Each structure stands twice: as C-alpha cells, then as structure tokens.
C-alpha cells in the first residue's frame, strides 16, 4: 500500500512505565516489530488514514521503542534522529518516573530536530487507581508549565491510547503543513533556508526553526 506521509514517533520515559505495552495496545497487538540491534531500537509500523483539513492522508506511522537501554541512560543520537513526535510516558503509581520527566525533556530537546518539538505527556497505568501516587492536577500543572498536553492513559484497558496518538499526529501534521514553505523539517535542524534562494549567507534570514 502506498502512503502520503512517513511519520516517526518515539516513546520515551523510564523503564517500566509501560512504553512497550502502550504501543502494543495501540496496534491491537498486531504489528510488524523490527529490532535493529546496532542502535538498540525496536520499532513497529502501522498504516492509517488521518483526516486533516477535510482531506484524507495515508500515513505510515512508525512507533519507535527503546529496547531497555534507557535503564543505562544510553539512547544514541540515532534513536532521536528524524523523529517528529514524542510520547513521553510516566507511571502514575511511581513518583520517580514522574520526576524523571524533566530529564527526559532535557534529553529530548538536546537531541530532537528542534528545541520545542511536539510532545504529549502520558500518565500511564491510570487503571491502577488505588496505587496512584501522582494526582491528576499535579501532572496537569506540570504539563501546562511546559506548554505540552497531558493525558491519563492505561495501556492495560486502552484508555486514551488511540486519542493520544491522534492528538500527537494532529500536532505533527499542523507543523508539517506550516513547515513545508520554510523547508524546516526534522533532520534539517539549523540548516533551514528557502530552497529557491541561492546558498548565500543572508543577513535578514528569519528564525531558523518553525517551532
């Protein structure tokens, strides 16, 4: 099947927060998983049709997962390369995983194609209400401060899983639409230029990033 867009999302967060289960839930347990051992990446693909501005876009969505190396804080630049959207997960029953979100955002901003990429924060394991230690308002307030959206999810029941992916897809599509004119897309960080212009230094060059 042909597609119009290839879009790559990364799932990030401490080990044990449910990244793999989340992606598994989204793909209904049916996915093409591929593991690239040299870079420690496990990724799945899903084809879908996304409606944007009344038009149907055929999308090949790649969902990249770590393979446990985040335990060692060893994500290589290859992992972040060309990613357009970021699913940042923590475990509502684990305080530390929530506190680590700040570090993950730092990492992400350092390695992503721009400093303000599209991120959705997910408080996962919402089904374990009796074991919850992070209150909804607390996570919400945190996300608001960072200017990112927040959802409570459950990879076990499927709560908000598809909604989160759709929300992220929507953000990415909006950015892609607005970036087309400026030729600022992932993988071209800091090298943005109008393709119609000669490759000379232009003192009036506007912001190099669409974000």
């Amino acid at each position, binding site marked *: 099947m042909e597609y119009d867009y290839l879009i790559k999302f990364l799932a990030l967060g*401490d*080990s*044990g927060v449910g990244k793999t289960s989340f992606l598994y839930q989204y793909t209904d347990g049916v996915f093409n998983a591929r*593991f*690239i*051992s*040299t*870079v*420690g*990446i*496990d990724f799945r693909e899903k084809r879908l049709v996304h409606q944007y501005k009344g038009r149907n876009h055929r999308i090949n969505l790649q969902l990249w997962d770590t*393979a*446990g*190396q985040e*335990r*060692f*804080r*060893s994500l*290589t*630049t*290859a992992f972040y390369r060309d990613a357009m959207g970021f699913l940042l997960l923590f475990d509502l029953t684990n305080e530390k995983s929530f506190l680590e979100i700040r570090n993950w955002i730092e990492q992400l901003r350092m390695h992503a194609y721009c400093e303000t990429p599209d991120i959705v924060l997910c408080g996962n394991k919402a089904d374990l209400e009796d074991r919850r230690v992070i209150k909804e308002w607390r996570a919400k307030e945190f996300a608001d401060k960072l200017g990112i959206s927040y959802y409570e999810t459950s990879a076990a029941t499927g709560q908000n899983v598809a909604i989160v992916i759709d929300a992220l897809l929507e953000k990415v599509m909006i950015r892609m639409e607005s970036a087309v004119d400026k030729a600022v897309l992932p993988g071209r960080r800091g090298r943005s230029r109008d393709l119609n212009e000669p490759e000379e230094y232009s003192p009036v060059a506007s912001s190099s990033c669409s974000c």
Partner: protein
Amino acid sequence: MSLNLQYEAIGKGFVQQYYALFDDPVQRPNLANMYNVESSFMTFEGTQLQGSVKIMEKLLSLSFQKISRAITAIDSQPMFDGGVIINVLGRLQTDEDIPQAYIQTFILKPIEGSFFVQHDIFRLVLHNTA
C-alpha cells in the same frame, strides 16, 4: 613491581566474581569492597564517577530486577606495576528486555597481596547509525 604472570587466571577469576555479585540484587551492595573510597574511577555510559561511594550510588540506581549475562571473551594483560587490565565482551539481558551487547574494561591495582578496581569503563554496544 613486576609483571604478574597469573594475569589470565586473575582476569577470569575476577570477572566471574564481580558479575556474580553484580547480577544478584541482594549481593550487589558488596561490590563496594571492590572499589577504593578515593582512587577508583568509573565511566558508566560516559558518566564519570570517582570513589566507591559515587560508584555504588550509580550501580544501585539501576532499575532492573533481573540481569543475565553471556560472556563472549575476557582478554587480560599484565601491567608493569603488577596490576592487570581486563577487557570483557559480553551480552546482558535486563528483565524481559532484548539482550544487548556491551564492553567493560577493568584495571586491577595490586594492594597488599590482593587487588582493587582502580578503573572501570562500561558501555553498551550501540551505534549512531544502523
């Protein structure tokens, strides 16, 4: 001091003992005895640590419960101060994650008929390109 010709046996024996402690969560804190309070260095995935306290903080902060290992090669050489340099090539699996290759280098420094780990460098074998 002169070269210690037992380097091969020391290397193998050390690695076996070190990982036996490391891989058992109950015994992992005992690794502290392998390092010196001041003069041990560790580079863990690019993070520089000095002294047994900082090193143990790092090792005990790792979040996996289970770890299993397959050692492919242990290469050792004697050093002119009587120490031994050891390079380990292996694979490890944490909990149910996919197994990962790693390399770890140790330098054992002789002290009163025994050794301590003066240098310890650890990296998963992950590249920037597929």
